[in-house]
Each structure stands twice: as C-alpha cells, then as structure tokens.
C-alpha cells in the first residue's frame, strides 16, 4: 500500500513565536497525482513546502516520502531521495549560463560534487543531460547564454528545468506562473502538462484557470489548516471555499 503513496503528511504543525503558521495539517498525495494547493496569501502553502523540504523544522508532525520518514531531514537530503522543488521567487545562479545552471542541478545528485580535481565542463554526461533538460523547457537554443540575458519568463522555465533535470519522483512547484504574461502562462502551462505522468506534482498557484486545468485534485488551505479537499467540482461546491474567496 505505502508504495503507492508519494507523500504522507501527518499532524504537521509549525509555530513562529505565538503564531501557528501551520496547524495540524494532514495530507496524502498518491503517486502520479497532480495536486493543487489553493488558498489566500498567508494560508501557509509555501511554509508547508519549506517543512517538506527541510528548510524549516516542524514543531510537530511527520513527513513521509514514498514510505520513508523524512521529517526534519536537512534539505540537501531531498534531491537524492527524488524530491525537487522550484521557488516562487526566482532562485537561479546569476553568474552562470543556462547550461551551467542546470549542471549545478545535475551535480547535486552526482558524487563528483565532492571532487576537488575532476573538471566538470566538457563531461558528456553533464553536457548532454543539461541540454536535454533545457530542451524539455524550450531553452536549448539559449544554453550558452548568461542568465542575465534571459527574460523573466525564460527564468521561470529554467526554474522548472533545474528541478526536472534531477528526474525527481515528487516535484513541488511554487507559483510557477507568478509574474508571467498571458502568452508566457500558456507556454509554462503546456510545459507543466508535458511533464511525464510518473512524476508526482504538487502545485501552488493563484491563476485558477490554469491551476484547475492542470490539477487532478485540490487541497484548500486557510490560516494554516486544510479546510477542504477533493476534485474540482467538490472544491468549487464547498461553502467554506466560497466564503474565503468571496471575502478576499
């Protein structure tokens, strides 16, 4: 049974001082699911991501990734376990080319990251896989350009390329459409749709049209709690959800 569950969160709680940012959240994501995390700003969605990836230590509760307990595990343990994420605020390497950005991602799951002597540039396994990842997000033509010469929309796609390059089992996407124009949104939507189905996705997104089109199921959070869960019709019909979104 456990093999079919990608992510299991039980009783997750995080206090910042007196504030309960996350309050006894339970979440079960089956393998292959595309789950949308919905909720107004401050609902605790990104905090939940940070708790899953070990950027924050939970006050209480547990996280299991494919049946393995990863509660409180430091974030550098995530990548080897097949957990990748993107950031709402662009978090890329400004002094490097696009290909070099992806190489740093590939290096993160390679033992060569500890070698003080092995030259990385020119190694086939890195070069080819970096290019393949860039191709996947439609940036292969710009592989050798410095990051500074790319548009914001391209940076958003590179964010996803860095995560995809590691061939993760579970991918957390934090507002992958934030700040994009209409056309760019469609491009990134198509890109996310093209992600292989065996990669489980959890998505935070405010663009309801795109998000609902992408997601198989939806979890609604409010004030650090899960208030509703289900498919699109169930969530839309839920009175509490209506209340939150009409109020805000």
């Amino acid at each position, binding site marked *: 049974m456990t093999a079919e569950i990608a992510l299991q969160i039980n009783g997750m709680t995080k206090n910042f001082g007196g504030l309960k940012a996350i309050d006894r959240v339970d979440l079960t994501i089956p393998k292959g699911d595309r789950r949308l995390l919905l909720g107004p700003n401050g609902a605790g969605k990104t905090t939940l991501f940070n708790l899953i990836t070990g950027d924050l230590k939970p006050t209480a509760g547990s996280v299991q990734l494919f049946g393995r307990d990863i509660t409180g595990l430091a974030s*550098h343990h995530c990548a080897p376990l097949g957990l990748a994420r993107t950031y709402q605020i662009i978090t*890329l390497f400004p002094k490097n080319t696009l290909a070099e950005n992806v190489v*740093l991602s590939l290096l993160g799951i390679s033992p060569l990251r*500890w070698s003080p002597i092995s030259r*990385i540039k020119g190694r086939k396994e890195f070069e080819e896989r970096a290019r393949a990842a860039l191709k996947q997000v439609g940036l292969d033509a710009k592989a050798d350009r410095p990051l500074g010469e790319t548009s914001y929309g391209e940076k958003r796609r590179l964010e996803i390329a*860095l995560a995809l390059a590691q061939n993760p089992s579970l991918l957390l996407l934090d507002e992958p459409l934030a700040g994009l124009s209409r056309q760019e949104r469609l491009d990134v939507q198509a890109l996310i749709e093209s992600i292989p189905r065996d990669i489980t996705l959890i998505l935070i997104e405010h663009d309801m049209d795109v998000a609902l089109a992408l997601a198989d199921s939806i979890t609604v959070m409010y004030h650090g709690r899960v208030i509703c869960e289900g498919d699109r019709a169930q969530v839309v019909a839920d009175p509490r959800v209506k209340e939150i979104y009409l109020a805000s």
Partner: protein
Amino acid sequence: MTNTSRITTISVTLLILALAAPLLLGQPFYINIGSQVLIAAIFAMSLNILVGYGGMTSIGHAAYLGTSAYVVALLTLQHGFSFYSASAVALLVVVIMAAIFGAIALRGTGITFLMITLALGQTMWGVAFRWSDVTGGDNGLPDIKRPDLFGLNLVEPGLFYAVMIALFMVALAGMWIFIHSGLGLSLQGTRDQPRRMGMLGHHVWLVRWIAFIIAGFWAGVAGIAFIGYHGYIHPLSLGLANSAEVLLMVIAGGAGTLLGPVVGATIVVVLKMVVSAYVSRWVLLLGCTFVAIVILLPEGVVPGLERLLKSILPAARDDGEAGS
C-alpha cells in the same frame, strides 16, 4: 580566436613577463621583491577561495600563515627538525586548526562569520604575543635557516625566486583545477544561491567547511615560503593588519577571479615597498587604500581590465577580418 581565448593569451603573456621581470632587472633587490610578491600571491589566492569563490569574508586569514611559520620556526630552532619535515608538520597543524576554526566560524554567516574569523585570528596573535616562553613574545623568533634544495643553496636570491616561481605555478594550477572541479562549482553555487544549492543536493555547510580547510592549507604553504624567505617570524605576522592586507590584495585585484589576487598582491607589495622607502606611514596608507578601493573600485582591477579588454577586442577582431 574568441575573445575569451584572446584574454587568456594576453593574461598568460603578461604573467610570464611579470615573472621574468625581476630576473631581467637582475639585481637581488628586485629578485627579492619578486619572491615576496609570489609568497603574497599564494597567500592571497588561498583567501580568494573563501572571499571570492565562497562568498565568505574572513578577516583572520593571517592566523594560518603565521601559525604555519611559527610551527616551522619552533620545530627547526628548538626540536632539531629539518626545514622540510617541520613544514610537513606545519601543514598538518594548520589543516587541523582550519578544521576547528572553520567549524566555529561557520556557525555564523555573512558579517557574523567575518566577526568570528577576526576574533579567532586575534586569538592566535594573542597566543604568539603572550606565550613568550615558547614564541619569544614581542621579540619573535629569528634565525631560521633557509634550507637547501637538491643540494642547491637557496640563500642565493635567484635560486630562491626560481623555487617560488615553481611553488606559485603549482598553487595557480591547483587553484585553476579546484575552481573548475565539482567541489569548486559547488562552492561557487553556495556563494550565489545557498538555499537552492541545498535543495539541489549540495551539502552547503560541508562544502564551505572543506573550502575553509583548503584555504587554510594554502595559507599554510604561504607561511612556509614566508618563513623560508624572511627567516624570522613576529606576532604581527598573525595580526589584524596582516589579515586586512591580504584581504585588500584579494579585493583590489578582484575577488573570485583566478589572477585577481596575484595582481592585488603585486600592487600591495610594491606599494608597501615604495611607500616604506620614503615614509613610515604604511598603515595609514593601507587604511586609506582600503577605503578608496571599496568605494571606487569595488570589483577590483582584474574584472575592470577584463571589461576594458572586452570592449576594445571586438573592434580589433573586426579590423582583423576586414584586413584578411
């Protein structure tokens, strides 16, 4: 030829000319300046690993050079070690010291890291200054003999300079290999985006700690060359002014570039030499240069020159194509 390879060619040519210059001038005075520049360059390159490639500004780096020099001095003077076996022990001591100090300093990041390195550096100064039974205190330790190498007497300035060139080349090559290696790339990534690097599977703290130890090791190498050259070590060599001086070399030349610290070391050593010949106000000048560089030339000489060359070179290439 691409611009990058042109710039590389120009740099290598300049480097060879600079290395040959003291020999061409011929007098021991210039050759000795050459040796001092190279020792300073190795020292500055070691700090560049932290400041330039790791984004960790340390103001206590003289502690590693000084400790290494003190160990060599003590072992050769008081315990009958040969210079070379003493050097091996010195490197071991410095590596252990860097491992411990690094673990402490890396409890903090950014300015806190800087403050801890400064404080730890001053500890070593304090030990050298106060533990006078062993270190000679304010008198320092004089009369460390320059060793022979393959039967050659290195007291001869030209020979010593030749050894320094070899040592410098090894350090430079080692640095080039390191910054292009997996660990080197990882370190540069942790400088720019530590959080992302962690998420990508890089162990940020460990990478920084290892870099700290490698930087300590090379500072230790510089310390051995230093005691070999001067034959004398004083607590001032571990002190804050010396740590600031090497930091100035790195920043003035260009932190995070391969040759920046070398250029910076040349500028600072020559400047110090020239100024000291006329006035005794080196510390004042050091301070003012520091302020001026940080305000006027924050990225350093080498990146500035590189940009200048790049802006000139495309034109040169177009001319060349038109001519052919």
